[in-house]
């Protein structure tokens, strides 16, 4: 019996269901007639628990070879490199959105991502800078002036 990705995911899902079912008992009951607020989520969570259990049993029972099942020693963690860069950049962008605003934050986000994903050289960086300024500038203008959406200005611009 080998532990594969499905085993881990189903255990994670079972823990998730346990926590959520437990917190469903803390949902307030205002005492109105009719269906209680916790009824529908609890049905979903119990069904989800059953399905997760089926998945767990299947993951033990299936005699699949370790590569197909995704044995952890065989996973190429480098395949997630670019995705992780995107996550990191996006978290950075969102965290500093309040200070940088959508225009500056957006330009920095796109420029940073282009540089991380596309590589660094003077020619490339110049291109990346032009792309990020033009694309975000156009989008920002369309939303601000065309669609009248007030995008986050950022404290930095306010200080200026």
């Amino acid at each position, binding site marked *: 019996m080998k532990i594969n990705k499905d085993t881990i995911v189903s255990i994670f899902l079972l823990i998730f269901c346990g926590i959520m079912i437990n917190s469903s008992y803390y949902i307030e009951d205002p005492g109105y007639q*009719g*269906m209680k*607020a916790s009824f529908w989520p609890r049905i*979903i*969570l119990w069904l989800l628990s059953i399905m997760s259990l089926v998945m767990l049993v299947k993951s033990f029972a299936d005699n699949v070879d370790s590569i197909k099942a995704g044995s952890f020693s065989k996973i190429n963690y480098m395949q997630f490199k670019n995705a992780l860069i995107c996550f990191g950049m996006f978290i950075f962008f969102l965290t500093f959105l309040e200070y940088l605003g*959508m225009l500056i934050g*957006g330009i920095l986000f796109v420029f940073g991502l282009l540089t991380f994903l596309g590589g660094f050289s003077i020619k490339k960086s110049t291109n990346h800078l032009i792309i990020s300024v033009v694309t975000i500038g156009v989008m920002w203008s369309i939303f601000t002036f065309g669609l009248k959406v007030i*995008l986050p200005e950022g404290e930095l611009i306010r200080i200026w």
Partner: protein
Amino acid sequence: MNLSEFGKNMIDVILQAFASIVFDPVTLGLMLVGTLAGILAGAIPGFTIAMGVILTLPFTFGMTAIQGLATMLGVFVGGFSGGLMSCMLTGIPGTPSSVATTFDGFPLVRSGKPGLALGLGLWSSFFGGMISAVILVALAPQLAFLGLEFGPWDYFSLIIFALTITVSLSGGNIVKGLIAGLLGLFAATVGEDEINGVARFTFGFDEFRQGFAFLPVLIGLFAFSQLLTDVEDGKRAKSPLMEKSGTLVRVEHRQAIAIILKRWINLFRSSFIGIFTGILPAAGGSISNILAYDQAKKASKNRSNFGKGEYDGIVAPEAANNATAGGALIMMMALGIPGDIVTAVMLGALMIHNIIPGPTFIQDEPLLAYGVFIAFFVAHFFMVGLQAFSLRIFLLVTKIPMYVLASVILAYCAIGVFALHNVVFDIWVMFFFGVIGYFMKKLGFPLAPMILGVVLGKLAELNLARATGISDDLLLFFLRPWSLFFLIMAVISVIFPFYQDAEKGSKFSNIYVPASVFALAIPLLFMESITRLIIALIMIGISFYFVYKSFIKNKALIN
């Protein structure tokens, strides 16, 4: 209201809707841009039509409902013709909806007839779309009338069926599909309960009280996660979108139309396959184009020519995939159940304008409903008209590397999502669901059931609450004919993947179809309508015929 008055009213509404689209230069302009964007989104491998429609959505916030929907329809219809452009010129299908077109389209191009190949694809799409548009106008109001018979029990069961069939048709592991659907339903329960106004699963965070807005979830699950997948392979992400970008060709319109009209049986058969597939929740153009191709091949006298540039092999998938769009719209317009991800987004767009589609939608919002029908027609004309121009842009766009497009679109997603409610929390929601979507895909979970779960979750709960509010007898879900009908359909759809895997000639595969037909006939028997009674009896007859046929076949095998 008598029949002639009803007819007059309907013509009035259609004329008004026609005027609101065709005589409004703003709407026409938006549709034009939408169609062009759709053609490009469909043409770029890695981008899908659904993604094109999702990315269009933020621009529609500031528009009227009809302008927004017309723009999205432009993207939807344009996307199908974009898909055919890349598969013919480069041999790489731009969207899953044009996979079967590649089988004969690309060989025809290589044999030196690129203009004819493009013309055949383009005009087959046009005619397929037109046929489905006519069916849409005729069938959607009728289906909506049927929907008026539905009580909350029936509606709840219909939603369950929509979810199970999505799981069944999304391919892969059915348990994972069901888990994805349930996770979607659960995500829709977070926040204030609409019935009692009670907070659920907020864990003390005020932001959670509003729940997860549907569009950030959708953009995260679908667009954000797709972009992450697109840049995963660093080497590929840095190279241009297409190594072979194709050359500019002149489309042979007249010759193509003449060839298609000679193959009118194939055209109609494929269009009807497309419409039917579109009506089924979750079964989209990716399925219909292959089904239609397969049927065209079976029916053709020149089977051996398929795969070598056979005209019928282009007409069938292209007519079918555009017709699928009309089929998907029928379900959305008539019952408020999205036929695929694109119509789920349109449903979301309508909700932004406080319009909830359902059986009464066509009656309550006739101008908007018929406006959608007209826009669907008009978009097909734009699709044909824009082909030559979009071909030039397509050749330019294919030179851009994926990492550039992905980076810019990720930022655009953030701006677009913020524009929905002007809150940064929505961008976090999009990011969170983007990460979930990315890892779910990596772990083999289909995303379509989760998306449908999020879209239909609140509706399911509302109908369950209404049903239990009227009567606490849960047996009514099995005793009401329509509800039972949909629940049987749900069970059939869950078993369907096992039927597909079963060996031909095995007991299970022999019994599945007749048992399903028989089971579906039972609720029809109790529907108090002579027509439905006759249909039920015919279905019972068919099921017995199937059993008899397999019995004779087995007997012959034993002997």
